[in-house]
């Protein structure tokens, strides 16, 4: 002891101060707001997009994954081979991957996850993704063989969905409140009604993310969202709920605005089994009564791309069919008269909370009134919407955005809530699913788009825009939303 140790102590203090100082400069945490709170945190047993927003690629990973541009790249599978007949996929898994609880991720876990999704009593919200799987076979801990009933050109795409992430049998019991995955972030804390916090996973197999922790905050009220962003209480808003406020953020150097596209086809969903909508002339009259641009300008302040079918315009296979249902109130009135509704008729218009629906609904009700259709507006909360419209099918019209990627297949499900039952379309989907040739697939997808467009199944309105707002210094946020996700792994703060 003596002078020497005192000196080394002070220099250690100084060093510590420098270290702490440098850490304070490079910001390594982020608070991102989103509108809806997830009901729980298991992406493999619910359709709620908010679950994927929090956990997809952050906590849970699949064999393949989506990138921000919509491409599908290897995830937990390092590589794969496809047999010549297109039915057998042999996946080679990454070595040294562990779950957050320390257990190793191997082929048994993948088999468990896929078997769980395909099981009879599976609660997976997208069972159709896995319907083509005949068997899953573990070759060795790092190799896995998946055999399909039919060749499926979409299989690798399907595996990238949040519903297809790999989970472990050891931690499955409490997955809803304590998700244990393989991702770069571990679940830390959930304050119900307020926020969820994730922490960096020190044992991550891949590149270490720049962020040490991330908080997802739930702000459903558009006014509160605006206030929180302006006060810089939050660093970013995933999909800002009030498009009218974006010009104010754009004009403010503190913020950046990221306008991209989502997979959300926003449609005037029509109950195809409920008279008079079982008459194609009535549905066609609906389609011609709608002025899409007015809805985009009025409800979304110009953000959104008109669509004429249930398909995303940024998809290479998209066919522009907006002309099939062009705005033509004269024609609409003539069609109504032809169908026996000279003086129009009355129906209901159920509107869930988002502004695309509430505001869009007011505009559509006015446009329908113009041709004689009296649509009674019924504002509903999401829970009510799911109960009475989605499950109960007790509605005439409703407005909703279908945000799952490549979801034209829902038109092949006659029991789906809008109840479109076309054997032609169902046959077409079967052919599409068993086709692997890309050109042939594009052609078939075009046919499918035309079929539902010409059948006027629903009023096809516009592709929902993704309106991200963030502080100016944040890099790596997804501009588009090929799937519901807030990918934290690429996010960093510039100095």
């Amino acid at each position, binding site marked *: 002891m003596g002078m020497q140790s005192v000196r080394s102590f002070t220099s250690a203090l100084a060093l510590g101060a420098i270290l702490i100082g440098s850490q304070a400069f490079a910001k390594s945490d982020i608070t991102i707001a989103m509108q809806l709170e997830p009901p729980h945190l298991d992406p493999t047993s619910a359709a709620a997009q908010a679950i994927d927003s929090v956990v997809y690629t952050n906590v849970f990973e699949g064999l393949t994954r989506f990138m921000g541009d919509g491409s599908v790249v290897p995830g937990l599978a390092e590589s794969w081979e496809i047999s010549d007949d297109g039915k057998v996929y042999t996946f080679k898994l990454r070595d040294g991957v562990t779950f957050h609880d320390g257990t190793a991720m191997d082929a048994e876990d993948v088999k468990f996850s896929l078997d769980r999704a395909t099981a009879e009593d599976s609660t997976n919200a997208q069972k159709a993704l896995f319907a083509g799987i005949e068997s899953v076979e573990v070759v060795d801990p790092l190799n896995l063989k998946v055999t399909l009933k039919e060749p499926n050109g979409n299989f690798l795409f399907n595996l990238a969905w949040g519903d297809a992430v790999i989970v472990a049998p050891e931690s499955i019991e409490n997955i809803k409140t304590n998700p244990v995955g393989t991702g770069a972030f571990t679940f830390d804390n959930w304050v119900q009604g307020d926020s969820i916090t994730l922490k960096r996973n020190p044992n991550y197999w891949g590149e270490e993310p720049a962020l040490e922790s991330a908080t997802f905050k739930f702000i459903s009220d558009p006014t509160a969202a605006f206030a929180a962003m302006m006060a810089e209480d939050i660093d970013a808003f995933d999909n800002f709920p*009030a498009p*009218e406020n974006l*010009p*104010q953020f754009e004009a403010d150097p503190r913020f950046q605005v990221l306008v991209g596209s989502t997979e959300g086809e926003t449609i005037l969903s029509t109950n195809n089994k409920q008279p008079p909508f079982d008459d194609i002339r009535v549905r066609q009259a609906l389609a011609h009564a709608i002025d899409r641009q007015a809805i985009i300008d009025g409800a979304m302040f110009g953000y959104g791309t008109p669509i004429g079918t249930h398909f995303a315009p940024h998809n290479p296979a998209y066919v522009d069919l907006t002309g099939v249902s062009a705005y033509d109130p004269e024609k609409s009135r003539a069609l109504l008269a032809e169908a026996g509704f000279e003086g129009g008729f009355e129906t209901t218009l159920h509107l869930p909370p988002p502004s695309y629906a509430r505001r869009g609904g*007011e505009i559509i009700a*006015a446009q329908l*009134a113009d041709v004689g259709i009296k649509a009674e*507006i019924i*504002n509903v909360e999401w829970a009510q919407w799911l109960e009475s419209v989605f499950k109960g099918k007790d509605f005439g019209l409703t407005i909703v955005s279908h945000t799952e990627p490549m979801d034209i297949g829902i038109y092949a499900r006659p029991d789906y809530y809008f109840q479109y039952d076309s054997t032609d379309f169902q046959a077409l989907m079967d052919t599409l699913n068993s086709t692997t040739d890309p050109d042939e697939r594009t052609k078939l997808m075009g046919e499918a788009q035309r079929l539902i467009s010409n059948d006027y199944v629903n009023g096809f309105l516009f592709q929902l825009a993704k309106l991200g707002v963030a502080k100016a210094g944040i890099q790596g946020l997804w501009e588009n939303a090929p799937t519901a996700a807030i990918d934290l792994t690429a996010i960093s703060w510039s100095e």
Partner: protein
Amino acid sequence: MSRNLILGAALSSLVVLAALVSFIWTPYDHAALDIPSKLATPDNTHWFGTDHFGRDMFSMIMVGARTSIAVALVAVGIGIALGVPLGLTAAARKGSWLDEVIMRGNDLVFAFPSLVIAILITAVFGAGAINAIIAIGIFNIPVFARISRGAALSLWEREFILAARVAGKGTARISIEHILPNVANLLIVQGTIQFSLGILAEAGLSYVGLGAQPPTPSWGRMLADAQTMVGIAPHLALIPGLAIIVTVLGLNLLGDGLRDWLDPRIRVARA
């Protein structure tokens, strides 16, 4: 007549006039959308500007006045129609079990915060103008019951009632022929105040989406719609807000003025 009374009457009749005129004329169709000319500031073509759908705000305010007045008027009507007979009955049977039942029932309704229960009623039975009327109306019943009972109790002690009794009139007949005309002044004053509260309640319910449903314009909903646009188009919030202020202020001044004017004691003192 006091200045309050004149100012209150002027403001109130301005609103009532706007509502009445809206039946035969508005500058534009209040429901007609004109999206290209949305969020226009007030000028010669649109006196109060246009909203986020390009609808004419002046026309919407006029028709909205109709909604507010109709809801508040019927709600007050329910209160008077049910509350006054209950109050008079309770007074006539003072101290009996009937009096107790009526007044404790009123206390029960009074015990709940009215707007919260109104929200509950509309949430359970569905949003809409009719349910809003019922919800607001229910809370007017005890107000009128109490006020008419209180006033009637003192009247029952007066000599002219005694005279009527001696003349052989029944309790019900006395209540209607002698008590009611003498509490009418009080009821008019209270009715005016309740009317302004009804307009506020309707605006509050519409603000949270439980009042009149679109496309029927309502001041409360106009305010709610304007919320996120205050920064870009302040008139969207200012105009319906001012409409509510003017109406409520006018009715309150009117109520105050009427009380002063109708109260015999103050009238005598002034003379």
